[in-house]
Every structure is written in structure tokens, then in C-alpha cells.
């Protein structure tokens, strides 16, 4: 079942001679429960794609369907609600609020959605526990390492039980050991907790944790590779069939 569907998606910035095409009629279908990485050289449009799928930016052309709903036609209120309930975001620089504790940071999406603080805090603590941060609930971001801050950010992304986790260079600011831990956690979000993860990275080692890699170049999809043994075999057979037709 497709959870993200992107059809003829384009994004241009500027006008006339300064016009830049960031995405050029991209088509992409992501199944529920997939861990997908988007890769490509700088400026290939990978972050733009993530932002359009996350409703953080409006497309110039084409549609984005999240769980079969066209988000390009949504008004700001509906879009905010969708982002808060169906999507979790993980960023390169964690984007935690410095004056709040780990638990308060992780609880934030629920609090903003009107859930009482004691209920929200308990659910945040559960997710922090699952992310091996159970003993640091009252720490503030400046008392945590980069890897630990990213764990809090992932707990915050998971707390509203979203369908989709969008991660933009989640290991871009971490050393290789912390990077592996974060990649393992994102993999767990798919394999154990049944989420769909879409991650942008330029690190091949981190990309290899995913089930599938989509390569972008100059705003277009140039290659699409399945990595899981069984799934990869199915796709290869499908590709052969299509080639023969």
C-alpha cells in the first residue's frame, strides 16, 4: 500500500534569468513500512523533495499524496494538523528547544495538539526509554551529546505515533559511531514500530541501512535501487518483465 505518492512534482525558484529548477517532474511511490533513502550530489533537489513531501513548502507543479490525501490542495490549518499527527521530522541540527528538558522537548508535538502535559510527558518518557534515553529525562539539550540530542529528536518525532518519519541529514553532524546508532534507531522505527521512513543523506554507510535508495540528479530521479534481498529479487523480476514488454 502506497503511503507517499508523488506525481509530476516540480519546484522552481525565482523568475526569468534567475529561475532555478530544483525538482523536475519527479514521480515516486513509497510503500507503507519502507525505509527509503534519497541520495544525490548537492543541489540535486533531495532536500526540496523532502520539504514538499513534508508540506513545509508548496510545489510549483504536480501533486503529493500522503495516505491518499492531496496535500497540495490543503489549507494551512489542515496542513499543520497533518504534519503534527501523521509526520515526524528529524533534522541535522536536532532543532530542540534549549530551555526545555529532554522529556518536555519530546512531548512538544502532543502538547501543541492539546494533550495535557502529564499525559504527554508520560508518552514522551516511554519513547525516550525506547531510545535508550530513559535515564536522561530531565537533562536539557546542552547537557547531552549530539547523538543523545538526536535520540531526543527521534523520540519527539515518534511521540504522536506518526505514519511517516522524514529525516533530513540526521547524521550530518555526528561522528561515525553515533551515526550508526541513529541509523539503527531509524531502521527500528520501520522494522519494529511499523513506520515509514524517508531519509536524505550523503553518507553511503548510513544509506545502506535503508531498504531502498532513490538517486536524484539535477532535480530528476536517475536511479532507484532496492536493497533488501527478497524485495530486491522481486523488483528485478518485475523490471525484467517490463523490459520484455
Amino acid at each position, binding site marked *: 500500500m502506497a503511503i507517499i505518492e508523488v506525481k509530476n512534482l516540480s519546484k522552481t525558484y525565482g523568475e526569468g534569468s534567475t529561475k532555478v529548477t530544483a525538482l523536475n517532474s519527479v514521480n515516486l511511490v513509497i510503500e507503507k513500512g519502507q525505509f527509503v533513502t534519497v541520495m544525490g*550530489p548537492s543541489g540535486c533537489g533531495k532536500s526540496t523533495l523532502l520539504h514538499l513531501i513534508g508540506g513545509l513548502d508548496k510545489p510549483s507543479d504536480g501533486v503529493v499524496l500522503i495516505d491518499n490525501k492531496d496535500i497540495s490542495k490543503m489549507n494551512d490549518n489542515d496542513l499543520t494538523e497533518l504534519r503534527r499527527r501523521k509526520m515526524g521530522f528529524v533534522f541535522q541540527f536536532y532543532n530542540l528547544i534549549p530551555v526545555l528538558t529532554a522529556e518536555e522537548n519530546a512531548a512538544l508535538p502532543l502538547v501543541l495538539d492539546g494533550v495535557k502535559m502529564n499525559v504527554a510527558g508520560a508518552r514522551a518518557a516511554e519513547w525516550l526509554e525506547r531510545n535508550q534515553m530513559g535515564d536522561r529525562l530531565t537533562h536539557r539539550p546542552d547537557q547531552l551529546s549530539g547523538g543523545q540530542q538526536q535520540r531526543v529528536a527521534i523520540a519527539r518525532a515518534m511521540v504522536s505515533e506518526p505514519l511517516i518519519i522524514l529525516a533530513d541529514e540526521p547524521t550530518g553532524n555526528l561522528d561515525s559511531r553515533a551515526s550508526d546508532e541513529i541509523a*539503527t534507531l531509524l531502521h527500528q522505527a520501520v522494522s519494529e514500530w511499523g513506520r515509514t521512513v524517508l531519509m536524505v543523506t550523503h553518507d*553511503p*554507510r548510513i*544509506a*545502506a*541501512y*535503508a531498504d531502498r*535508495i532513490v*538517486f536524484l540528479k539535477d532535480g530528476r530521479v*536517475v*536511479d532507484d*535501487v532496492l*536493497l*533488501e*534481498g527478497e524485495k*530486491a529479487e522481486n523488483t528485478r523480476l518485475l523490471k525484467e518483465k517490463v523490459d520484455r514488454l
Partner: protein
Amino acid sequence: MSVRYTLLGLLAQQSRYGYELRAAFISLAGGEEAWEVKPAQIYTTLNRMLESGLVDKSTPEDTSSDEKGVYSITASGQKELAQWLDEGSLDDPQQDAFFLKLMLSLELPDVDPTRLIQTQRSALYQELHRITTVRTKLDPHTELARILLMDKATMHLEADLRWLDIIEARLEEVKSQPVPHPEMRPRGRPTKN
């Protein structure tokens, strides 16, 4: 050659039977899938080392079998081992099948080098994914040596992938350059002027 010296090293630790040596080598090298070595190879290597006096063999009296016998290291074996341990070790990463395919693709009209790069990248990522999956299942408290070996494989694959990115980015430039050809010497008798 590494097998030979590693066997010497294992004998420096303690004298052993041939089959014990093979088992010890395999676990040291990170398992059978990391380094496959047949019993015949072990015994051929041991026999050569016997001939050159690097090892000794004592055969128990109750058996006539050629394979039964305890091997031990000699003084000249110790010396050879120390020398090998003292040298740096460089593998040869230059013999690359993909590189030959790429060079051929520049020559052959029906082969698209871009497609070749994509296929290679896909194969490298499949392998990287496979190793990552195996590696995350290993226990760092008991299988650290294998984890380190897999880290090495991971980093080599990473380097290969980055190299592909460089090739892809500079492919047009490469295409516009002449493909290296050997200088052909004229055959036969030189023509008279």
C-alpha cells in the same frame, strides 16, 4: 603467502596437528566465509615449510598416516615470522574489473558508461547493505574481531562508492579524451625507401 606466515604464527603460539591449524586459521581470519582454505592447501603449505626447514613434524609411532603429526616451529621459522610481522602490508586495489569494463565502454558503441556506473553503484550498495545487516547482528563482546573486519569491508565499499561519484561527475571530460592505446610497432621487414 599470508596463509603460510599465519600458520607459522599459530605454531609459534603452540605446536599443533594439521587439522587443528586449519581450524585455528579459519577462526582467526574471521570465519569460513571471510577466508576459505581447503585442508589440501594447509598440508601443501606445511610440506613446503617442512622442506625449507621452517617447521618440524613429529609423528606418533602408532600411526603411519601422512596427515597425522604434530607440527612445531623451528628457529629459522621464528626468524621468518618476525621479518614478516615487521613489514608493512599493501594489498593491490588497482586490479579492478569494473575499471576495465568502464574503459571498454568508452570504446564500444553499444555500451553506455552511465548505465555501467549505475549498475556498479547498485551492486556496491547491495553489498554494503548486506554487510551492515550482518554487522549489526554481531555481539561486540564476543565477536569484535569480525566486527572490525566488516568495518574494513564497509569502508572499502564506501571508498568505491565515492570513487564512482567522482567518475560520474567527470564522465563527459573522460569521454572527450583519447582512450589510451598501445603504440603499435610495424611488423615484418621495413619497407625500402
